[in-house]
């Protein structure tokens, strides 16, 4: 194979990377500017001086912004745990136990996964209001779990299908019941699938907007995307605070994505291709 000059390739790659990154970079740069620097003319492209006063201000004066992040974290973890337990069991049964309605259930689950969240709002809001589930972690965790369970079931079911079935049969012969097989054999063998699915569901939950907006109406209970979006209130947008809070809210996602890039990409593309 002849080596072609690759400058063009690198140029295109660099352009793509810059375009993907620059809104995030600009946001981070904004967050370390002084308020004067943010609104200065001529504009400050590079923060002078670099200051963390905005972060300090949030910590000391706007703890609710940190509370949003905590709320997102609690809901994300709760929703991920619930979907992995429920979805793991269901995915195992649907892919391995020769259920009579397995095909129908899988297609049905796929179909409901595409319901637009806004369509659920009038009913969910009304029911949660009457059940006292508005502004509770339980409420939003359940709602998110319901929303992302279909994805989880499909992901895990297709992961289980890649495991050699003979190991589970050997476990049957050894005297295990299906629940024990799931817990002691399937779970340890499919942890990469659980990790990928769990990470994606966590990101989904962290990012989810309409349900979090409607089911958490008290300021103290809002998740990060909703809380930050609604933060400014009636007055002009305080960009120094917003940019800083946004950086804080996306850092967990940036870290997770960076560390588990392979698993997430693998999971996403497998899920979409199925």
């Amino acid at each position, binding site marked *: 194979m002849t080596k072609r000059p690759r400058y063009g390739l690198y140029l295109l790659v660099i352009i793509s990377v810059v375009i993907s990154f620059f809104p995030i970079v600009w946001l981070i740069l904004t967050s370390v500017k002084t308020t004067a620097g943010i609104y200065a003319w001529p504009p400050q492209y590079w923060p002078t001086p670099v200051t963390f006063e905005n972060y300090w201000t949030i910590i000391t004066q706007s703890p609710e912004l940190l509370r949003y992040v905590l709320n997102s974290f609690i809901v994300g973890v709760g929703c991920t745990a619930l979907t992995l337990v429920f979805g793991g069991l269901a995915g195992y049964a649907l892919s391995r136990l020769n259920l009579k309605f397995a095909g129908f259930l899988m297609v049905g689950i796929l179909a409901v996964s595409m319901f637009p969240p806004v*369509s659920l709002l*009038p009913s969910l809001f009304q029911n949660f209001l009457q059940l006292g589930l508005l502004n509770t972690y339980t409420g939003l965790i359940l709602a998110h779990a319901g929303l992302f369970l279909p994805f989880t079931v499909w992901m895990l079911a297709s992961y289980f299908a890649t495991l050699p079935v003979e190991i589970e049969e050997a476990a049957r012969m050894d005297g295990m019941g299906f629940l024990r097989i799931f817990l002691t054999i399937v779970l340890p063998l499919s942890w990469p699938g659980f990790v990928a699915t769990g990470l994606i569901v966590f990101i989904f939950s962290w990012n989810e907007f309409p349900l979090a907006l409607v089911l958490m109406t008290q300021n103290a209970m809002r998740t990060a995307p909703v809380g930050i979006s609604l933060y400014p209130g009636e007055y002009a947008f305080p960009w120094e605070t917003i940019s800083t809070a946004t950086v804080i809210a996306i850092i967990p996602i940036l870290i997770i994505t960076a560390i588990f890039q392979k698993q997430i990409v693998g999971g996403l593309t497998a899920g979409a291709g199925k």
Partner: protein
Amino acid sequence: MNAAYSLDHRRQMTGMSFVAPTVLLIAIILIYPIIQSVVLSFGQSSIDGSEPYEFVGFAHYAKLMGDERFWNSMAVTFTFTAISIPLELMLGIGLAVLLNESFRGKGIARLAVLFPWALPTALNTLMWRWMYNADYGLFNAVALQSGIVDRPINFLGDEWLAMFSMVVVAVWKTSSFMALIILAGLQSIPRDLYEAGRMDGMSRWQEFTQITLPLLKGPILVALIIRSMDALRTFELPFNLTDGGPVIATESLSLYAYKVIFDFIDFNFGAAIVVVQFLVIFAMSLAYIFVLRTRN
């Protein structure tokens, strides 16, 4: 051991008990609310259940048909979808082909492309809104300083510019998702096909049009349908970028439904809107499932 039941029967029962929690939760969170929305859309009721439900037939739907703002939101939603999806597709294919090459720093490039997708749309939108800002935004700063314009551009204040700005954010965020799905498809194309193509004397462009594109039909179709459904229910993007403005120039169907329900507190009329939206998207999802089934 209960030998009274057959092995199969016991396995079915166990399996059903494994599936039950999932089915139950999905029924409560996804299926029942849709049914309830349909019921609400045919009646008049109060949010807290203090007044009895009164059946009004198709009254809300009749009102919807004559509601200009509803038709506007339909037009906005479909315009947004129709413009952003082809752009995402083209950029997605380009990115996928690019990322399928081997070069140094590929991991970082891939990660960079993944970030916009992984971050919350609501917060992405805020970042862009900050850059679009007419007074202090990055774009206007560059444009003014370099002398391209002499007055700041009001990106979000003009009907067409606002739509354009919204499309840019969507394309920026989701081209990477398209790229990832198409990339997975690319990587499943056997290398020796290209080697055979080279033996047959194909140029790079012919390789792309004769081998790559035809074999990517499936992944592209899947990505297109998933993204179309996403775009048709877009909510937080206009919510955070323009709040539907200027006036209602970027008010999507989801956003209008939300406003009717929670700003105008008209649950029943709002329910009629979401039912219509549901039917549109559900029709698409059935098309999606049909496509997947015929592919297998």
